[in-house]
C-alpha cells in the first residue's frame, strides 16, 4: 500500500503531540522565528507566568519591520522603534534566544533569513508571528503565521493548539511566457480564487510551472498564500529543494545531509495522494499582472482594462465601488499607462537576489522617470552583499534608484519609508490594502519586481515584455 496522504497530512501527523479537549491538535513546532514587532508582549506573558523558552535552540530572532533602511545608527531617531529594538535585545538575552541584530552580517527580513541560513528545511513545522510565514512552505514544510499569544505558546511549549485544515491542490500546467514571473502566477491564482478562497485550506502548489521554478520563485508564490486566505501554502520537496539547502550554515552536513535529503523527498505527496479539493490553471495563459484595487485579488493583466462594476454580484458591488473610489480609478479604464509616484522593490515577497537581478536587467542603461522616487531594498544583508558583488547596486544607482539597507521598508509603514498623501506606488510587496504603505490615503499597485522597474523607468504602469 502506498501512502496516499499528501505532504501536509504526513507532516501534520508526525508533529502531532496529542488531541486537546477542544478537539484541536497540540502540534510540535520545529522552527520558531521571531522579530521585534510581535514578540515583546509574548515575552511579557512568559515573565508574568514565570516560564522559560522550552527549546531556545529551535528559535531564531531577527529584526526587520521597524529597521530604518537609510540611517541605522543607534539609538534610532524614532523613540518607539528604539524601545522595541531594546526590548527584543533584552528578551533574547534574558531567555537565551539567538538574535541576528543589526550588527550581525546575517540580519534581514525574517522570511528571507530562515531559508538563506538553511534553518528552513522540508518536513518541518514552522511558525512565526507574521502572516507571511507561509513563505517557508516553498521547502515542503508546514509554515504559518500566528498571533502574539501563540508566540508565547510556542516559546513556552514549542507547540500550538490548532485545527487541521483541509488541503487544496492547485496545479499550474504548461509553461510561463517570457516576462511572466512567479509573482504573476500567485497574483493570478488569488485573482481567480479570491482573497478568502483559501480560508480553511492549506494550498499545495503543484505541476510543471512550480516544478520548473527556482526556490526563490517558489518562496514568492508560497509567501502570498495568505493573501488568498490560505494560512499555509507549500510545494513538495524535490531535487531543486535539496540542492538549495545543501551547504547552508544550519543545514545538516555530510552523511547526515544525505539521510536528511532522503527523508525530505519521501514526504512529497505521491501521484495518487488524496486532497480535499483540486483545481488546475494553465500557466501559458497568465499575463504580467497588476493590482488595481485595495485587496490582492483585485488585479488585471497589464493589457486588460479594469472590470465593469456590473460584472460583480450585487453583494460585491459596494466593495468594488469603494475600491474604485479609493484608488481614484474608473471601471473599464486601462491599467497600462497609469501614472506612478513611487517604485518599491523589496519585501519578503520579492526582496531576494533573483528579484533584484530581474529588476536590474530592466533598469540597466535606463533612467528612472523624472518625479518618480524609486527604492531598492534588499531582503537581507547577505542579499545586499551578493547584489553588490554583482554590481547590481551600481546598475540601480546609475538608473536613479536609491540603494538601501535590508529591512521590510515600504511594505508596511513601520519604519521611515512611507508613502505621502495620495501617492501611487508600484510595489513588489504583497498588500495593497488601504493605508498599507504608510499614508492613510496612499495607493499601492502590486506587481513583479521587473514590472516595478519598468514602471519606474516609464513613470507609469508598463508592460515589461516590451523592455526585456
Amino acid at each position, binding site marked *: 500500500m502506498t501512502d496516499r496522504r499528501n505532504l501536509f497530512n504526513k507532516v501534520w501527523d508526525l508533529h502531532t503531540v496529542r488531541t486537546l479537549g*477542544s478537539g484541536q491538535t497540540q502540534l510540535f513546532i520545529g522552527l520558531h522565528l521571531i522579530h521585534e514587532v510581535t514578540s515583546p508582549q509574548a515575552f511579557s506573558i512568559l515573565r508574568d507566568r514565570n516560564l522559560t523558552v522550552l527549546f531556545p535552540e529551535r528559535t531564531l530572532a531577527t529584526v526587520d519591520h521597524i529597521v530604518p533602511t537609510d540611517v541605522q545608527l543607534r539609538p534610532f531617531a524614532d523613540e518607539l522603534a528604539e524601545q522595541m529594538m531594546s526590548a527584543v535585545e533584552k528578551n533574547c538575552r534574558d531567555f537565551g534566544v539567538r538574535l541576528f541584530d543589526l550588527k550581525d552580517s546575517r540580519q534581514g527580513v525574517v522570511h528571507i533569513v530562515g531559508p538563506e541560513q538553511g534553518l528552513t528545511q522540508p518536513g518541518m513545522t514552522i511558525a512565526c508571528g507574521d*502572516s507571511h510565514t507561509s513563505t517557508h512552505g516553498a521547502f515542503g514544510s508546514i509554515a504559518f503565521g500566528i*498571533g502574539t499569544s501563540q508566540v508565547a505558546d510556542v516559546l513556552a511549549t514549542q507547540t500550538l493548539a490548532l485545527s487541521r485544515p483541509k488541503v487544496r491542490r492547485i496545479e499550474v500546467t504548461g509553461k510561463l511566457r517570457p516576462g511572466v514571473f512567479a509573482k504573476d502566477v500567485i497574483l493570478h491564482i488569488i485573482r481567480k480564487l479570491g482573497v478568502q478562497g483559501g480560508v480553511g485550506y492549506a494550498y499545495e502548489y503543484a505541476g510543471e510551472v512550480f516544478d520548473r521554478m527556482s526556490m526563490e520563485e517558489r518562496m514568492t508564490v508560497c509567501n502570498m498564500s495568505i493573501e488568498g486566505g490560505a494560512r499555509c501554502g507549500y510545494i513538495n520537496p524535490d531535487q531543486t529543494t535539496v540542492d538549495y539547502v545543501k551547504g547552508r550554515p544550519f543545514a545538516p552536513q555530510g552523511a547526515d545531509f544525505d539521510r536528511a535529503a532522503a527523508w525530505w523527498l519521501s514526504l512529497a505527496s505521491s501521484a495518487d495522494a488524496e486532497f480535499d479539493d483540486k483545481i488546475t490553471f494553465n500557466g501559458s495563459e497568465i499575463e504580467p499582472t497588476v493590482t488595481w484595487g485595495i485587496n490582492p485579488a483585485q488585479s488585471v493583466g497589464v493589457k486588460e482594462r479594469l472590470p465593469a462594476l456590473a460584472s460583480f454580484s450585487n453583494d460585491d458591488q459596494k466593495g468594488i465601488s469603494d475600491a474604485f473610489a479609493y484608488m481614484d480609478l474608473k471601471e473599464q479604464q486601462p491599467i497600462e499607462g497609469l501614472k506612478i509616484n513611487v517604485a518599491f522593490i523589496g519585501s519578503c515577497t520579492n526582496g531576494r537576489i533573483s528579484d533584484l537581478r530581474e529588476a536590474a536587467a530592466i533598469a540597466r542603461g535606463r533612467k528612472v522617470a523624472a518625479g518618480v522616487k524609486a527604492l531598492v531594498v534588499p531582503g537581507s544583508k547577505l542579499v545586499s552583499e551578493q547584489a553588490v558583488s554583482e554590481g547590481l547596486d551600481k546598475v540601480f544607482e546609475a538608473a536613479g534608484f536609491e540603494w538601501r539597507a535590508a529591512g521590510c521598508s515600504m511594505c508596511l*509603514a513601520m519604519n521611515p519609508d512611507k508613502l505621502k498623501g495620495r501617492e501611487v506606488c508600484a510595489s513588489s510587496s504583497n498588500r495593497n490594502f488601504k493605508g498599507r504603505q504608510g499614508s492613510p490615503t496612499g495607493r499601492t499597485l502590486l506587481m513583479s519586481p521587473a514590472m516595478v522597474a519598468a514602471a519606474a523607468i516609464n513613470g507609469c504602469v508598463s508592460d515589461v515584455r516590451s523592455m526585456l
Partner: protein
Amino acid sequence: MKLITEITGTGLPLLLDDIDTDRIIPARFLRCVTFDGLGEHAFEDDRQQDHTHPFDDPHYQGASVLIAGRNFGCGSSREHAPQALMRWGIEAIIGESFAEIFFGNCTTLGVPCVCASRSDLEKLAALAKAEPEMPVTVDLSKHQVRAGHLTVPVTILDSARAALTTGKWDFLGQLLEGAAAVRETAATLPYMTGFKA
C-alpha cells in the same frame, strides 16, 4: 478561565467585506511593547476619513457586539487588531466569515467570532441602526443570535466553541500540561536528532 457561553450587549453595524487588520489597527500603532492604549486607535485611518464611521457614532459608544461582513480580519497576523477591538469594548463579533489567523487570535482572547448568513447580518445591522439600544445576545450554546424579534442561526468552529464554553481558551495552560508528550514527539523527529543514523 471564565466560561463564555453567552454575550449580551448592544450592536455595532460595520457590514463591510474584506476588512483587513491594517485597517483595524494601522501599522504605526504596532510600534509598542504592550497592547495598552490600542483601543482608541481601532480603525483610526478609516475614522479620520469618514466622520460618520460607526466607531465614532455616539449611538454605538457602549456597543460590544460587532456586526461585520465577509472575510473580516484578513491580512496581517497582528494580534494588535483583536486587542484593539477588545480594548475599544468589543466582546463578540458576528460576521459572514472570518480570516483564520484573526479568528484564532480572537478565540485566544475569549472573543467569540460567529458566522451568520448575509441576509441575517443585514437584518441585524438594520436593527442596530434603527434601535441602537436594543441588546444583542450571542448564544454559543444554542448556536444563535437574538436581538428584539430576531433570532438567527449562527455557526462557529466546534473546537473554538468547545474551548470558549468550557473555559479552556487559555491554550497555554493546556499546552503546558502536555510537556512530557512534547518531548516524546520531539525525540521522534529526524531533524531533532540531527538526522543521525
